[in-house]
């Protein structure tokens, strides 16, 4: 695609300005107010406007109290992301390589289920994983579950929900990357004595890595902050940081703690992402 010489001048600014302004005011600036809120002295009132005290101690308190949900959120998201990676890779590979003229249709089918409400889909899992429904019965039949064990309201259910709900975020970037692989490279590897397994590990997988990186990031990050799955499919012991933050804001009116937890979550995620990208390489992330 020939690169048009881009035009210079004020028109470019003018076109970009409204969107940029919206994002600056309602996305960038809020991080400052989030930070400011996290530094409130909680004993004061938080309806007083831009008053900042430098209570870094809030962070210590918050983490001391809530490090478990924080870790739990990251753990669940991590496991769910791995599951999504396996399932998603199989699906993306099948569509990219094995589907011929059904490719577009299959892609549409991948996204289609996710046009229903997130909440309703998660509620469906309540039914699917219920004690007296087929899945649990089947697993009990196979003696994977004991007669008194349940799936619902356990971490397993939460992770299942997460792995289900965020699957498209994994499949689409993976597909984009796998689809770009030149089939002739796979043929060439066969010509050079690589059997199908060797061809996958030596050619397909390395070339799909950019998609793997994008996909895992786009899945892990939102999953770490999610609490819908944890609350609908889990129990009080599966409480994740998201619901703590929400609760602290709404019920407990403890915005300083909530804000510091929110900031902490964001910082942790940023650090993890940064380390991950450094290891995996940044080519063509966007």
């Amino acid at each position: 695609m020939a690169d048009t010489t881009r035009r210079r001048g004020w028109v470019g600014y003018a076109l970009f300005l409204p969107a940029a302004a919206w994002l600056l005011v309602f996305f960038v600036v809020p991080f400052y107010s989030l930070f400011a809120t996290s530094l409130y002295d909680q004993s004061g009132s938080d309806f007083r406007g831009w008053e900042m005290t430098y209570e870094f101690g809030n962070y210590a308190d918050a983490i001391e109290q809530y490090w478990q949900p924080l870790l739990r959120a990251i753990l669940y998201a991590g496991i769910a992301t791995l599951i999504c990676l396996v399932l998603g890779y199989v699906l993306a590979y099948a569509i990219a390589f094995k589907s011929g003229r059904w490719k577009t249709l299959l892609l549409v089918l991948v996204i289609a289920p996710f046009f229903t409400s997130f909440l309703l889909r998660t509620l469906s899992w309540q039914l699917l994983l219920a004690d007296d429904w087929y899945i649990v019965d089947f697993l009990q039949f196979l003696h994977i579950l004991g007669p008194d064990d349940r799936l619902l309201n356990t971490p397993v259910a939460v992770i299942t929900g997460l792995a289900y709900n965020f699957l498209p975020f994994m499949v689409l970037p993976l597909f984009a990357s796998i689809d770009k692989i030149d089939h002739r490279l796979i043929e060439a590897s066969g010509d050079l004595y690589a059997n199908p397994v060797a061809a996958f590990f030596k050619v397909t997988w390395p070339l799909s890595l950019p998609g793997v990186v994008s996909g895992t990031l786009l899945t892990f990050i939102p999953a770490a902050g999610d609490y819908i799955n944890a609350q609908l499919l889990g129990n009080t012991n599966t409480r994740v940081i998201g619901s703590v933050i929400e609760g602290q804001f709404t019920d407990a009116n403890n915005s300083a703690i909530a804000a510091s937890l929110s900031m902490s979550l964001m910082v942790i995620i940023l650090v993890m992402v940064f380390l991950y990208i450094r290891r995996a390489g940044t080519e063509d992330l966007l």
Partner: protein
Amino acid sequence: MNWIRRHLVLILGLLVLAYTFVPIAVVVLMSFNDPATRNVYRFDGFTLHNWTNMCEDPAMCDALWLSIRVGLLATLVATLLGTLAAFALVRYDFFGRSSSNLLIFLPMAAPEIVLGSSLLTLFVQGGFAGQLGFWTIFIAHVMFCLSFVVVTVRSRLAGMDDTLEQAAADLYATPSQTFWRVTFPLVLPGILGAALLSFSLSFDDFIITNLNSGSETTFPMYVWGAARVGVPMQVNVVGTLMFVISVVIVVAVELNNRRRQKALAAT
């Protein structure tokens, strides 16, 4: 047996795909459910009652109506601003363009709880704590939809053959005519796709909305609230409708594309 071995990957892939539809099947199924008790989410009996009495709980329909209103307005604004921004990013060069790309990408990558809570602190600090409601929801929705609109329209625009516009100019079209008669029709599918995506995201959003809605209740918030005491089955009617409408739109578009391609091929 050998057939299975050869097509193993495809079969596995299709199984995964089928798996994604199972919960949808449940939603559709439950829309016909006649529940024995409200607390237990279980299929007890078949009925059309939910479909014929959709607003049995008026709060649900109020919430639904709010979600639709916010969704439409937010979609309108986000699509408009996002399309302008996409044009700016693809066709123009200006200082800070690459950092602008980053600015657009970041909201898509941040967890919703962080987006929602930071926006809430902004409203509170700005003194609007008492005015959380329709407009704050609207603001939040436009904010997180913008990125998706920009990315969608941008990819459509970047993939467009720009020699077409040069040809139009060569054939005496003024810039305005070129835009409306050549560029716009070609980008339109991307814009419409972005609008559809934007509406879905807005309609379905819970976490960000929940924190910034004050006393208003959108449809997802209603479901969440009801989930603690037992959801009325009508929510599944809404869910089924959402699914069916989206699928119909997408299939119609795809069929239309194929029909047009066949017509082109026949000439």
